[in-house]
């Protein structure tokens, strides 16, 4: 503030030349009278860049899912057909991969909700200002720290010779040996996306006015009833908002199954990745449409539950 005041005084010492100033005022006036010109000037560059580069690529990708690749020349043949989708529909292997992906995404979401809710409640309604700020940073830092590094460290933890088995052995329990399995994939996803669940759940719980809870008690509800009938319904949009992240991020991932999964941990993303590697772009595009469709349905449901207001 002080700096800008100094600067303002500096400006009054050295006013811009009259014609320049007049031109600037005229220009400002012009934009004031024609706000759409200013809006156009601001919005055109980002929108054009996004439409020409990003949206166009997406549409082209979707269109290419209805084409095929010549098996001999591996050239793209622009013949309209739904063969790629037929293959997906008919081959059982792809069903189980899709089901595994969706199933693990759902399990991750559930685990994150269970872990996050009490923490969000503590953060939003019990902790004081300082400890709240501390927890906030403690959740935010893992969220922003490298995804790849966090997956890698879990590989070391869950390895047969890792710290998990060592700890279990020390306390006299049998070794877990869950490295390179679907359990590992589930656990790692739960870990990696947890902060994305905590933040919206905390946000939703923090916003509930204390007076609602007092009113509920005045009307004779016990703690449990107040929780079930007042807190839970008001917090639900936050949980659903968090679940959008945990669910969709798991659904589209391929790095964690690749690095930490076993032989039967393939996700939709892995098949897409491999198809691209073997020049089967149309098939990859078709399979990539599956998580998009699932997310589309999920987002519609989430909107019904009021998750977007909690975002």
């Amino acid at each position: 503030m002080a700096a800008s005041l100094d600067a303002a005084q500096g400006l009054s010492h050295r006013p811009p030349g009259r014609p320049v100033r007049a031109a600037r005022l005229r220009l400002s006036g012009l934009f004031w009278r024609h706000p759409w010109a200013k809006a156009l000037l601001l919005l055109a560059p980002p929108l054009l860049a996004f439409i020409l580069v990003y949206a166009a690529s997406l549409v082209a990708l979707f269109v290419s899912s209805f084409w095929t690749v010549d098996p001999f020349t591996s050239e793209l043949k622009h013949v309209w057909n739904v063969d790629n989708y037929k293959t997906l529909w008919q081959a059982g292997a792809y069903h189980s991969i899709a089901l595994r992906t969706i199933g693990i995404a759902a399990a991750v979401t559930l685990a994150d909700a269970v872990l996050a809710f009490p923490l969000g409640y503590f953060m939003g309604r019990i902790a004081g200002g300082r400890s709240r700020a501390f927890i906030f940073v403690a959740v935010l830092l893992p969220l922003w720290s490298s995804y790849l590094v966090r997956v890698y460290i879990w590989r070391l933890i869950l390895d047969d010779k890792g710290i998990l088995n060592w700890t279990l052995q020390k306390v006299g329990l049998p070794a877990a040996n869950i490295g390179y399995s679907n359990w590992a994939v589930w656990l790692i996803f739960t870990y990696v996306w947890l902060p994305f669940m905590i933040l919206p759940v905390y946000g939703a719980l923090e916003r509930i006015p204390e007076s609602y809870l007092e009113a509920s008690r005045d009307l004779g509800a016990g703690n449990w009833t107040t929780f079930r009938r007042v807190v839970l319904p008001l917090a639900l949009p936050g949980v659903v908002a968090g679940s959008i992240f945990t669910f969709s991020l798991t659904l589209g991932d391929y790095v964690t199954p690749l690095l930490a999964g076993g032989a039967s941990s393939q996700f939709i993303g892995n098949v897409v990745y491999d198809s691209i590697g073997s020049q089967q772009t149309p098939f990859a595009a078709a399979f990539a449409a599956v998580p998009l469709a699932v997310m589309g349905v999920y987002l519609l449901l989430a909107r019904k539950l009021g998750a977007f207001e909690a975002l």
Partner: protein
Amino acid sequence: MEPRSTRVVLAVWSTLVILFLWIPLALIVLYAFNKSNVQSWPIPAFTTHWFHAAWTSEVQTSLELSLKVGAIATGIAIVLGSAAAFGVARFRFFGREAVSFLLVLPIALPGIVTGIALSSAFETVHIDLSVWTIVTGHATFCVVIVYNNVLARLRRTSPSLIEASQDLGADGLQTFRFVVWPVLSTALVAGGLLAFALSFDEVIVTTFTAGSQNTIPLLILGYIRLGQQLPVVNVIACAMITLTVIPVLLAQRLMRDTGVLRRGAGNVTEAVESAQVTAV
């Protein structure tokens, strides 16, 4: 007020969840000092040798590429993201929601979709993969970070201040310099820092837009997959974890400082809002 027992249980649960989040991060720091080539537990002996040994030419080349891509992508994101935020915050027009939707798309869709869409588009129009294709990929998802930060800040700033500035005779440039900029600058820096952090860490889109080049995450992904150079991976991992602290804490501080002119309260709220939308 919740009963005491409930509060204790919640406090314990919260502590455990925070530990769950942080123990792995602490472990990666320990592993960076692991003397052995084998990454098992307990760590047999400690050394600082790898910190020196990790500075290979491969790592240097990748680091250079990562920094370059991050800087350019962040620059593009700041220009396009803040322009879009101003447009959306200040004007009411048909399709306003569609703008937000379009900008959020790259982080709302799975990274692999963005990645394969861009790579097949580059192939179709015969653009060879280069620094610029990586930058294009990163810029698409960095724009929304800046956009969200700037938009959140603008929504908290009363538009009447700008009118007041104009009533007092300031032209557009002066209004921007003395009214808008002091409010906006911290949000812009915060958004830029987070965009850079995101770009620096990105794996999936980069895989499809990098060709034979390696950014730091691609380099260590390759090492991890092949089980090679794991001590080097440990050191880079440790460095990445400790270095994230800087931009994130800085951005966090800057977001809390909502500038001189604020409408409505809430420092944490703004941070939560931008972190959430940002972080997809």
